[in-house]
C-alpha cells in the first residue's frame, strides 16, 4: 500500500506550494520531501537523521493539491511512526497522542486543572513537557458532555443517529455537543452516544500508530453494530469525521472499517443532505448578525465543499462571509507544542488579517481547535455552527424554544 503510494509521486512539487508550514518556515523542506521522498529514503541504508517530520501539522492541504493522488499526509505519518520505532518519542508527542486520557484526568480535577495550567509557576513545567507556553491551553469542564448525556432521559424518535462526540466537544466544549444533540433531535432523530474513545487522530499526528490503531479498533467495535442496525454516524468535529472516514480504512485495512466509513457524516454534511432531500426542519427564527466563516482544512480535505455555508445560508438574518484565508495554523495538537508556536501563529496570520479586515460580530467554524486559534490570534469570539442552528431553532418559539432549549438544560 505504502509501496505503491511512493510510486505515484511525479515530484512535480505542487504540494510544496500548498503547504502552509513550508510557506512560513523555510526550514521545512515540504510535503514532497517529508512524504514520498522520505518514504524511499528511510527504507534505504542511510535514513537521513533529521526531524523534518515534526514540522508537518497534518492539515492535509498538500494532498488536496497533489495532481497524482499521492496520500502525502498518510506517508508522512507512516514515516513518523517508522522514525519513532528507532528513537524515543518526545514527551509532548506521547502526551498529545492520548488526549482522551489527558481529558479524563483534567476533567476530574477541573476547575483546578485549568487554574494550574494558567498559573505562572506551571509554565516552566509545561515548557519541560514540550508544551508551548505562548498560548492558553483549552479549559476542561468538570461535567463532560458524556456524563451529562448519560443522566438525560432517552427521547425516542423514529430515525437514529449514533453520535461520535470527539474529545474536544466532550471535555473542552460540551455546549457544542449539547447543541448538536438539540439540532439532531429537532430534526426527528433519536441520538445515541455509544461508549467511545478518542478517534485516534492526535496519536496518528504524533507518530503513535499503535495507539491510533487501538482506538480505531475500539470505536469500530462500538459503532459498526449500530450501522448494521441502520444507524448513521454523525460527528460535529471535522477532524474526527476525516479520521473515521479516511484513516480507519487505511489503518485497519479491513472491509469493516471501509463499511463504517461509508456511514460517517460530519454534522454540516449530514444536515445539508437533509436540506437537499427537503427534510431539514426549516422553522428557523431570525438570527441577525454578520459572521465570518472559516473553512477548516479537515473539512476541506473531505472533498465535500462547504456544507456549513450551505446550511447556515438557510438561517434568516444571518450574513455569513467566507474568510477564504487558508489554514489557521493550529492543526489539532500541533500548535500546542513548544517550537511550533511561532510557526503556527505565522501560518494563521492570513486568517487573522482576514478576520480583522471583515470585522464580523463573530467568526463561525466547525472545528474546535481552529476556534481556539482564531480567538487567540484576533480576540474575536468564535462559535460552532451547531450552536447557531440551535439558537435559530429556539428563536422560533419565543416562549422556551421547546425541544431545543430542553436539550441544552
Amino acid at each position, binding site marked *: 500500500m505504502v*509501496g*505503491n503510494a*511512493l*510510486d*505515484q*509521486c*511525479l*515530484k*512535480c*512539487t505542487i504540494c510544496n506550494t500548498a503547504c502552509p508550514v513550508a510557506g512560513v518556515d*523555510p*526550514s*521545512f*523542506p515540504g510535503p*514532497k*520531501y517529508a512524504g*514520498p*521522498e*522520505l*518514504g*524511499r*529514503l528511510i*527504507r*534505504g*541504508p*542511510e535514513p*537521513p*537523521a*533529521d*526531524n*523534518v517530520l515534526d*514540522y508537518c501539522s497534518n492539515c492535509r492541504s498538500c494532498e488536496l493539491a497533489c495532481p*497524482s493522488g499521492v496520500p502525502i499526509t498518510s506517508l508522512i505519518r507512516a514515516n513518523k511512526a517508522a522514525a519513532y520505532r528507532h528513537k524515543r518519542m518526545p514527551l509532548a508527542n506521547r502526551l498529545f497522542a492520548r488526549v482522551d486520557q489527558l481529558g479524563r484526568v483534567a476533567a476530574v480535577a477541573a476547575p483546578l486543572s485549568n487554574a494550574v495550567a494558567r498559573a505562572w509557576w506551571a509554565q516552566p513545567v509545561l515548557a519541560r513537557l514540550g508544551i508551548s507556553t505562548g498560548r492558553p491551553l483549552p479549559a476542561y469542564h468538570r461535567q463532560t458532555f458524556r456524563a451529562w448525556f448519560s443522566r438525560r432521559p432517552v427521547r425516542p424518535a423514529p430515525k437514529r443517529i449514533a453520535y461520535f462526540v470527539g474529545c474536544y466537544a466532550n471535555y473542552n466544549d460540551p455546549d457544542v455537543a449539547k447543541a448538536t444533540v438539540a439540532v439532531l433531535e429537532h430534526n426527528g432523530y433519536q441520538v445515541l452516544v455509544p461508549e467511545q474513545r478518542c478517534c485516534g487522530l492526535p496519536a496518528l499526528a504524533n507518530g503513535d500508530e499503535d495507539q491510533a490503531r487501538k482506538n480505531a479498533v475500539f470505536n469500530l467495535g462500538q459503532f459498526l453494530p449500530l450501522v448494521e442496525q441502520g444507524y448513521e454516524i454523525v460527528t460535529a468535529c471535522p477532524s474526527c469525521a476525516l479520521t473515521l472516514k479516511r484513516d480507519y480504512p487505511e489503518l485497519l485495512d479491513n472491509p469493516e472499517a471501509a463499511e463504517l466509513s461509508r456511514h460517517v457524516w460530519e454534522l454540516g454534511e449530514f444536515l445539508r443532505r437533509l436540506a437537499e432531500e427537503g427534510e431539514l426542519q426549516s422553522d428557523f427564527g431570525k438570527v441577525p448578525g454578520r459572521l465570518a466563516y472559516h473553512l477548516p482544512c479537515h473539512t476541506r480535505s473531505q472533498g465535500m465543499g462547504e456544507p456549513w455555508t450551505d446550511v447556515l445560508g438557510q438561517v434568516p438574518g444571518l450574513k455569513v462571509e467566507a474568510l477564504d484565508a487558508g489554514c489557521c495554523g493550529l492543526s489539532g495538537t500541533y500548535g500546542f507544542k513548544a517550537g511550533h508556536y511561532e510557526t503556527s501563529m505565522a501560518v494563521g496570520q492570513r486568517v487573522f488579517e482576514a478576520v480583522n479586515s471583515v470585522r464580523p460580530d463573530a467568526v463561525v467554524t466547525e472545528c474546535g481547535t481552529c476556534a481556539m486559534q482564531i480567538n487567540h490570534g484576533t480576540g474575536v469570539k468564535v462559535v460552532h455552527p451547531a450552536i447557531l442552528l440551535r439558537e435559530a431553532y429556539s428563536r422560533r418559539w419565543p416562549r422556551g424554544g421547546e425541544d431545543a432549549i430542553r436539550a441544552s438544560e
Partner: protein
Amino acid sequence: METEVLIIGGGATGLGLAWDLALRGINTVLIEQGDFGHGTSTRFHGLLHSGGRYAVKDPVSAQECIQENMTLKRVAAPCIEDTGGWFVHLSTDDPDYPGRWVTACRKTGIPVQERPVQEVLDLVPALNPAIDQAFFVPDAAINGFRLLHALAYSARQRGARLMTYTRAVSLVQKGGRVVGAVTEDQRSGQRQEIRASLIVNTPGPWAAEVAAMAGIRVGMRLDKGSLLIFNHRLSGQVINRLRSPGDADILVPAGTVSILGTTSVPVESPDNPTPSAGELLHMLALGEELFPHLHDYRVIRAFAGVRPLYDPAEGQGSAGREVSRTFSLLDHAVRDGLEGLVSVVGGKLTTFRLMAEKTGDLVVQKLGVGASSKTAITPLSLPERRPVSVFMPVRGRGDIKSQASGMRDVKESNQTYRLLDNVICECEAVTLGDLHAALAEAPDGDLNDLRRRTRLGMGTCQGSFCSFRSAAALCQSGKFSVERANVMLQQLVQERWKGVRPVLWGEQLREAEFMQAIYKRLLNLARLDAGGERV
C-alpha cells in the same frame, strides 16, 4: 611522463590494482578513457556475491566469491550494505536443485542456513507465497560508484597518479618490448606519451581492443546483461531464485532503489550497451514468477552492461553464462613472447581485489621488488564530506534544525550563521554541499561526474528537478560560466533520458512527459546558449 607501472582502464580491476601497487610502494599511473565507472563496474547488478550463484556450476568462482565477500566486508565496509541474501525455491522449479546446491555450497565453504519460508515472506511481502524453501546466505549489496571512489581516493592518498578522460590510443614498442602508451585527453584532444617499465591492461570488455594495439589477440566473449531499476526497495535483502542460473532471477536492494536482472545476450562491441524492449519485457515476465505484483511497481530506468568474459577457446567452446566467471592473468611475455605487457581478463566485481592482488604479485616479480599485497588488511577510506561554506547571518533565535533541508545553524563567536546547504536533489537527498564536495574531488568534472559521486538525479524523477537546479547553483557560485552550465545541463538531461527511454510505461511515462515539458518546452533546452559547443 614516466612511471614504473601504467594501468590502462579505471574500473574496479584497474583501480584495485592501483590501490594494491600504491600500498606496495610502487610508482603507478592509471589512465581511464572516461570517468571512473565509465565501464562495467558501475553498469552491473551491485551484488557482492556470496558465491551461491556459482556453487553448482563454477566452484572455483564460488570459492573466490565467498573468500572475497568476507574480506571486502572488512576492508571496504563503507561501500557495502551488508543486507544478507536469500535463495528461495519456487515449488514449480526443479525440485532436485536445492539438494545439489546445498551440497555444493558446503563443499565451497559458503555458509547456508535453511530458514522457515514464513520468515522471508514476512521480511519481503512482495515475494511469491508459493515458495517452498528458503536459505539465508551472506550476500550483500555493493555500491560500485562508491567503491571506485574509495579506491581512487585511497590510491591517490598513497601517491598513485590517476587520470580520467585519458584514453590509450596506441602502445609504443621498442625491441620486442612494450615501453609505453600514447594517450589522448578526451576533452582537449591533446596527446602525450607515458613511458612505463610495465603496462597492465585492465580495460574490462575493451581488453581485446587494447591488446590489439600491441598486435596481440585476446579472445573475449562479450555478453550484454540488462537491468531494471525499481523506484524503491521492494526488498531489504538480496533475493535469488534458487534454480540453475537464468535470466531475471536476482533482485538487489541498491540504496533507495532495487535492481532486477539480468539477461545474457552476446554483443560485438563493448561501447554503449543498450537494453532492448524485448529483453525488459522478458525480464518483467520472469520477475513476476518471483514477485507476482511486479507490474504494479514503478520502473524508473533500465540500463545494460557488458560482461568482460574471457574465452581462451575463442568461440570454439561454451557461451554466455557457461563461460567461467573466474579471471585470467595473461603474461604476454610467456603467452606471446612480448615483454612489458600483462592483461587481466574475466572475473567479477566481487573478486576485483583478488585479481588485483594476484596481478600485483606478478608485477613485483617482474619488477624484481619484494613487497607483498596489503589490500586484504588495509581498510579503504573515503573523503570526508565537508559542509558547503555559504554562510548567512541569522537574526534572533537560531537553532540547528533540519539536515534534510540542509539548513543548519552554526554558532560562532556570538553570531549565529545559517548554513545554506539546500537539498538540490530531493529524491536522493543530495545537498548543495555534497555537490561542492564532489566538485572538489573532480574539479574539472561535469554534472554527470558529480552525479556518479553523489547519486544526484538517480532517484524517482531522474533529474527532472535537480538537473536545472544543480546547473544553476554551480553557475551562481561562480564555478561555471553560463555556457558551460548549459552544456552540462544538456549532457545530464540527455544521459538521464537515455535510461528512461526504454521504460516508457506507467508512472514513469508520466514522469517522462513531465520532464520533457520542463526541458523542451519550458527551458527550450536544445537552444540554450552553449557557447558554440554541440551536444
